[in-house]
């Protein structure tokens, strides 16, 4: 027990942690992100009603004691739906991050380390995907395989991995000439081991920064698709979809659109600030402001 405590204390007093606590962006961002992640994980426990319980007797109730944030056109509790909306939002973001990092980092490392025809093939594919506006590709996917949560994940992964691959490739290219890689090669280390044990740890921190900035954009992209109606579908609550529903009745019942806009805004601001803060900490060149 004491061991764990002293380990934690060492982490808390380490140089990186100290700079993290001094960085305003990183601190505000991490507080907001922790809040959102807590709601995504445990928010269901605090939801006063099932998110999909329709009650036509209480449609468009204003915020009050019974319904903290009011109800929507079907009498569903907005507060409960916003809590569950956090889970959907984080679920999509986590899936897209996981898929794009596995694909992007693998292909980027292969392209950067081996070069040759594999590099050409991978980078040509990346260039072609980059030639399309992001939302257009997502719409193409939605038109072909139909709308829904799966579509959002597929479409955003398709749009997102090329950027990761390009970043990984450039990082690998700049490390490939390092002495310790030469040493590993000449001592007969298997390429797979070089990639995983020697290169990956050394390119991890820019990738982590990329991931935390990426979450903000993925959350925004998912909300945009859901807002346009080609994303996550009813009755699953998403902030984007709730804003769309709320916008139609903004004149009489603004609470639905306003509260869901607030939830979405706080989430994206949190991830963007955390990303900016981490970039300052990990990238000394950008950090000396």
């Amino acid at each position, binding site marked *: 027990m004491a061991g764990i405590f002293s380990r934690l204390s060492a982490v808390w007093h380490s140089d990186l942690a100290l700079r993290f606590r001094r960085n305003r962006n990183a601190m505000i961002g991490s507080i907001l992100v922790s809040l959102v992640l807590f709601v995504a994980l445990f928010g269901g426990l605090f939801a006063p009603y099932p998110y999909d319980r329709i009650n036509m007797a209480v449609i468009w109730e204003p915020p009050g004691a019974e319904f903290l944030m009011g109800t929507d056109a079907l009498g569903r509790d907005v507060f409960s739906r916003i809590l569950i909306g956090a889970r959907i939002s984080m679920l999509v973001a986590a899936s897209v991050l996981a898929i794009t990092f596995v694909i992007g980092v693998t292909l980027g490392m292969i392209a950067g380390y081996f070069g040759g025809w594999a590099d050409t093939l991978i980078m040509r594919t990346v260039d072609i995907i980059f030639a*399309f506006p992001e939302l257009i590709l997502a719409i193409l996917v939605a038109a072909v395989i139909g709308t829904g949560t799966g579509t959002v994940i597929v479409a955003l992964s398709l749009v997102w991995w090329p950027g990761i691959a390009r970043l990984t490739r450039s990082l690998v290219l700049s490390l490939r000439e390092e002495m310790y890689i030469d040493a590993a090669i000449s001592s007969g280390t298997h390429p797979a081991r070089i990639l995983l044990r020697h290169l990956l740890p050394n390119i991890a921190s820019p990738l982590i920064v990329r991931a935390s900035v990426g979450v903000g954009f993925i959350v925004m992209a998912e909300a*945009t698709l859901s*807002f346009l109606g080609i994303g996550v579908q009813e009755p699953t609550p998403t902030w984007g979809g709730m804003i769309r529903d709320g916008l139609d009745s903004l004149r009489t019942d*603004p609470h639905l659109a306003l509260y869901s806009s607030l939830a979405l805004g706080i989430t994206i601001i949190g991830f963007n600030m955390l990303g900016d803060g981490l970039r300052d900490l990990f990238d000394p060149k950008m950090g000396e402001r």
Partner: protein
Amino acid sequence: MLTFIVKRVMGLVPVLLIAVILTFLANQAVPGDPIAALLSDRSGDAVLEARLRAAYGLDRPLLEQFISYIGGILSGDFGLSFRFAQMPVSQLIGEGLLITPLMALAALAIAFPLGVLLGTLAAIRQNSWVDTGIILVLVAGISIPNFAMATGLVYVFALQLRWLPVAGWGSVEQAIMPLTLLIIPTAAYIARLSRTYMLEVLRTDYIRTARAKGVPERVMLLRHALRNTMVPLLTTVGIILGGLLSGTFVVETIFNIPGLGSLAIQAIFARDYPVTMAIVLLFTAFYAGINLLVDLSYGLLDPRIRVGGGGR
């Protein structure tokens, strides 16, 4: 320079060809038979069915359909709508064809100088309250999605103050809110980049030299510093325009503007695939064309790019 231009223009061909193939295949992958949907209550009418199939070219072999699809696109013919029987797609999207690119370009024309101004101001007053204030506004501008921002704008300016109309298209008042919503995130993004580039430039030796030899601050900023932030900023115009195009989908949907974006969304729900695909193609071509112009213009600004053949 000429070979550079020719090389870049030729680079467009594979991208556009792939876009054409993708949209053609997407049209083929339509779930269900579009002709059956068009016939609906007259489904027994074999003569009408044959006539419709011939009109839509669906009675011909796939390869032949593809060739006439490409031929049609080159002459501005995107086939017929699935939703409105035998209505040419080009006629359906004709009106939006001008609205959407014009809105995107107008927003860019305002957002670019505004962003550069804010970014430069923040950079030359680094770490002051001006800088902090601008950064806070920028974080909000970049982070809050435009439809969430629209909620607030419409609520305050259209419903509470009643200064601006809630939706619609055609008058100047109706264009203010949509354009503002396109401009805010774009200007914020440009300002953030502009601030970073400006801070970098202000630390360079040639700025120190200019200061040391007594060049007035204003001249130094305009003639030396600002100019050198323009090349990296120009390279991002493509990305910015991509964001603006996505923005038009949202803004057109919110404000009922009859542009390509809202047409595309309606067409997806109506399963009117030829319309969706025509708009996808047009957006891709527009985006590719702008990126080409950007490439060419920074080839002009920075001779190293011309000679080196591009440094991606």
